[in-house]
C-alpha cells in the first residue's frame, strides 16, 4: 500500500426519492506517473490509482479508468439518482494491488 492513502467522500445524508444528488470524492495518493526520473537517474516506478468505482445498493453508478496523467490526490465529482434509501460504496484500485473502500448511507426524506 502506498503511503498516506486516505479516501474521503461527501454524500448528502438524505434526499427525496428520485432526486439527483452530487457526490464528491477525493483520495490522497501521490499518483506517481512512472515517467519521472529520480535523483539516481532511474525511472521512478509507476504507482497510481488505476480504477475508481461507485455502486449504489450493488448497482454500478460510475466506473472510471484512471491514467498516469491524473495529478496527485485525484478528485472525482459526479451526480447520481437516488431511487431508494441505501448505501453508496466507493472503491479505489491501486497499481500495487491494494483496494481502498469506503461507504456512505443515504436516507429518503
Amino acid at each position: 500500500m502506498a503511503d498516506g492513502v486516505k479516501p474521503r467522500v461527501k454524500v448528502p445524508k438524505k434526499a427525496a426519492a428520485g432526486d439527483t444528488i452530487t457526490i464528491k470524492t477525493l483520495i490522497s495518493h501521490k499518483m506517481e506517473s512512472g515517467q519521472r526520473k529520480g535523483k539516481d537517474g532511474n525511472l521512478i516506478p509507476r504507482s497510481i490509482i488505476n480504477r475508481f468505482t461507485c455502486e449504489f445498493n450493488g448497482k454500478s453508478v460510475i466506473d472510471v479508468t484512471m491514467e498516469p496523467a491524473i495529478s496527485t490526490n485525484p478528485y472525482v465529482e459526479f451526480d447520481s439518482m437516488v431511487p431508494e434509501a441505501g448505501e453508496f460504496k466507493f472503491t479505489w484500485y491501486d497499481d500495487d494491488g491494494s483496494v481502498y473502500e469506503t461507504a456512505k448511507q443515504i436516507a429518503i426524506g
Partner: protein
Amino acid sequence: MKFKAMTALAGALAMVTGGALADADDDTLTINEEIEIITKTDAPAYIDGLSELISGWHFRSDETQQLETDDFDNPGMLGVEAAMEVWETADGSEGKSCADCHESAEETMVGVRAVYPKWNDNAEAVWTLEMAINGCRTERMGAEAWKYDGDDITNMVALISSVSRGMPMSVAVDGPAQATWEEGKELYYTRTGQLDLSCANCHEDNYGNMIRADHLSQGHTNGFPTYRLKNAKLNSVHARFKGCVRDTRAETYAPGSPEFVALELYVASRGNGLSIEGPAVRN
C-alpha cells in the same frame, strides 16, 4: 491603412483583456458557508506603498478561488488532517503529544496564527510559528526538531492556521519586536540578485500586472501555508521567500534564518487586517 488600424485596435483590445485578467476582482470569500473572510481592507498607517490591502485570493481564476470555499474541495485540508493525527500522537523521550499540553487544537490554538511571528521573552527573539513548534518538540517533548520547511511542520502550521481562519492578522510591530521589524523592512526594499529586484518592485509597484504567465499579488502571508497547484503540496512562508529570492537570481537566505524571520514579521505586518485564510489555494 485600414488593415493597420484594425491590428492596432486588436492589439489595444488584447491589452485591455490582459489587464482585466490580471487585476484583482470583486468577488467575496466565504469558507464552508460560515467563515467570512476579509480579503480587502485599508492598509495600516506604517505601510507607505499600499493604500488598500488585497488578498492574493483575488488575483486567482474563479476555478482556483472556488477550491478555497469548501474544506472538502481544498486540497490543503489533507495536510491539516494529517497534522490532526500527529497532534494526538506522542513523540520524543517525554512520551508527550501536542494534545497532552494543548488539548484540542480547535480550542487552544484559536487566534495563535494571527499574532505570529511574535516576540518570545525567554528566547529574546522574534519567533515564527515553526520556531514555536520546534521549541515545543525539543524543549518539552524531547523530540527532534522538524526540518524548518518540511512537510511535517508545514502541515502542523496549517492545522494551527485553519482554526483561526476569518480572524484578522494582527502581528505586533512595536515593543521588543520593533528592531526585527525594521530589519525586515530594510530587506523588503533591498534589491537582490542579477535581476536587481526587491520584494517591493513586484509586490508593491506591480501587483495586478503579469509576471510572465502569472499574476503578481501583493505578497501577503495571510493565506500561508498555501496549497499550490503547481507543486501539489502545502508551501510555507519561508519556502515561498526562498523561491522569490531565487527568482531574482540571488543566493537565498536559508528557511528559518534570522533574515527570513525578520522579513516574515515585516511582510505579515503589511497584511495586518486581512483575514487568515491558511491553508489557502493558489496557482
